[in-house]
């Protein structure tokens, strides 16, 4: 075995508590980086529209939250009359968000035919809710709860059973969908409906139709017309702030991994100053010492990265299974993307190397006088 390789192993094993402390201090930095990177990635993905819808929505102009909106059937009739050649269908939707079993979830009720054909909901598993006290849930809801097909949840004092899992084309909200009839039976009709949907013909220009509807006095007196995606954006008003926050977090995470690794490496090597000088006196050239120190730091850094990555993975997995994060019923999904993990590893190794490089210079300049201390 090479002399320095042998010394590296003996040195790490001899002072195993100090080696362990170095690994722990580096692992803390790695965990900080990976969790911040995961959170940053989740923010970036939050509220993204996979496939913009061309539907329009009509909401009470005075409602800050769609749940507070209250519309009557006459407004949908008016919309159909304003642009009959460009509108294929209109239909009402009930909208609530409720705390169900500790999760803030959206509840939407639309006619089954519209749910299947006009809202771009695709059935991933199970069946559509055809009978009473049935519901389908979005895959976004599955991510923040432990629900599955067959789960029974109490909503407004009634037990509803999950019959299927659906995916909507827009923002991934944690939503429950039920038939309009069931919604009316559950919530009553005194508040009317909350959102009026307008399905446009494929040839229609959504913005042009929206402007026409909005300009009509039968609508603008009481309601506002939006593109379907606008609701998601309005609903996710925090989205832009989260995007900004994600950039700050990404920067902090990069600083954490770079300076954290560098400092931990330098601290560990400064503690070894005496031994390093002694090896130099015994005939190990500075190049060989750098190789030795880098090997030593590499072993510690890789061990710390493995520990840190495992802790982060375990935390994210546990958090996803037992305490998922959601903001306004939109799940915030944490994950460890391979690119972030690889970048963290490269930065850790690079800055460990920099720590070695910058430490060996001052040590050699101190000279052997330090050995008399």
């Amino acid at each position, binding site marked *: *075995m*090479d*002399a320095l390789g*042998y*010394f590296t192993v*003996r*040195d790490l*094993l*001899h*002072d195993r508590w100090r080696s362990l402390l170095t690994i722990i201090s580096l692992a803390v930095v790695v965990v900080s980086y990976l969790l911040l990177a995961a959170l940053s990635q989740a923010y970036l993905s939050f509220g993204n529209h996979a496939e913009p819808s061309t539907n329009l929505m009509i909401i009470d102009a005075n409602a800050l939250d769609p749940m507070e909106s209250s519309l009557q059937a006459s407004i949908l009739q008016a919309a159909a009359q304003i642009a009959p050649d460009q509108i294929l269908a209109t239909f009402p939707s009930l909208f609530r968000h409720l705390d169900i079993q500790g999760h803030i979830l959206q509840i939407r009720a639309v006619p089954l035919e519209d749910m299947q054909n006009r809202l771009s909901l695709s059935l991933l598993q199970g069946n559509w809710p055809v009978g009473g006290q049935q519901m389908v849930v979005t895959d976004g809801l599955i991510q923040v709860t432990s629900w599955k097909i067959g789960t029974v949840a109490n909503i407004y004092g009634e037990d509803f059973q999950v019959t299927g899992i659906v995916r909507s084309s827009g923002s991934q909200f944690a939503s429950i969908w039920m038939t309009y009839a069931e919604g009316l039976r559950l919530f009553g009709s005194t508040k009317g409906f909350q959102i009026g949907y307008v399905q446009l013909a494929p040839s229609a220009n959504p913005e042009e139709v929206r402007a026409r509807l909005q300009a009509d006095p039968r609508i603008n007196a009481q309601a506002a017309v939006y593109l379907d995606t606008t609701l998601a954006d309005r609903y996710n008003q925090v989205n832009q702030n989260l995007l900004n926050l994600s950039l700050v977090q990404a920067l902090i995470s990069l600083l954490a991994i770079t300076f954290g690794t560098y400092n931990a490496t330098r601290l560990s090597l400064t503690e070894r100053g*005496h*031994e390093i000088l*002694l*090896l*130099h*006196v*015994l*005939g*190990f*050239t*500075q*190049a060989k010492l750098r190789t030795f120190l880098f090997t030593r730091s590499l072993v510690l850094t890789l061990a710390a990265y493995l520990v840190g990555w495992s802790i982060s993975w375990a935390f994210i997995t546990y958090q996803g299974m037992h305490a998922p994060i959601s903001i306004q019923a939109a799940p915030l999904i944490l994950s460890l993307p391979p690119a972030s993990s690889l970048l963290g590893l490269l930065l850790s190794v690079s800055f460990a190397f920099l720590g070695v490089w910058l430490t060996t210079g001052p040590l050699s300049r101190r*000279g*052997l*006088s330090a*050995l*008399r201390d």
Partner: protein
Amino acid sequence: MSKIECAGSIEAAGLEKVYLRGSEHVAALNGVDLKVNAGEFVVISGHSGSGKSTLLHILGGIDRPTKGELSVNQVNLTGISEAALTRFRRDNIGFIFQFYNLLPSLNALDNVSMPSMAKGLSWKAARERAAVLLEQVGLSHRQKHTPGQLSGGEQQRVAIARAMAIEPCVILADEPTGDLDTASANSIVSLMTDLNQRLGITFIIATHNLHLVRLASSSYELLDGRFTQASRK
């Protein structure tokens, strides 16, 4: 072990060393001339701060003079590169320190093996050689003990064995008995004189130990970075 086949001579002329301490220039050596023949047992004495250690470090190639010329084994060390100086030190010079300076993570056998391994000897060969050296210094029964498990005298014996590992022409010892009780110190002195006489290794020792001064083939006294007194037997 057979007699070591190398010159072991040292020639230094006008050695000066100036340190910068803060903004102040401190002269540790003020023009030291020294000529040591191969196989000599040289003692340099002087008060603390007189420049003894600085001189040893320069003679051993672990520090460079600010001014002056130095050759060891007829190799001029004044202008050679840092890497060449390290290689020269590795191949020719053994060191013994007051506080032993053993690597705390290694046992006695491994500590003695390190210089041989640095020189390129295989791990197995280096350890075999180290075992022989430890036996010669009377520590074959303490091979597996780390420095923390050895007494001061035993640690210094390990340090001497380590210095011997590369079959050096010259051994430089900086206060080798300074941290030892009288019995251990006498034992170390006997070991060093024996190695000098039996193997012909040149010893240069910085010390306050009067017993060592009396045993020296040449002795010098340093005061404020200059030799003030020299005696040669």
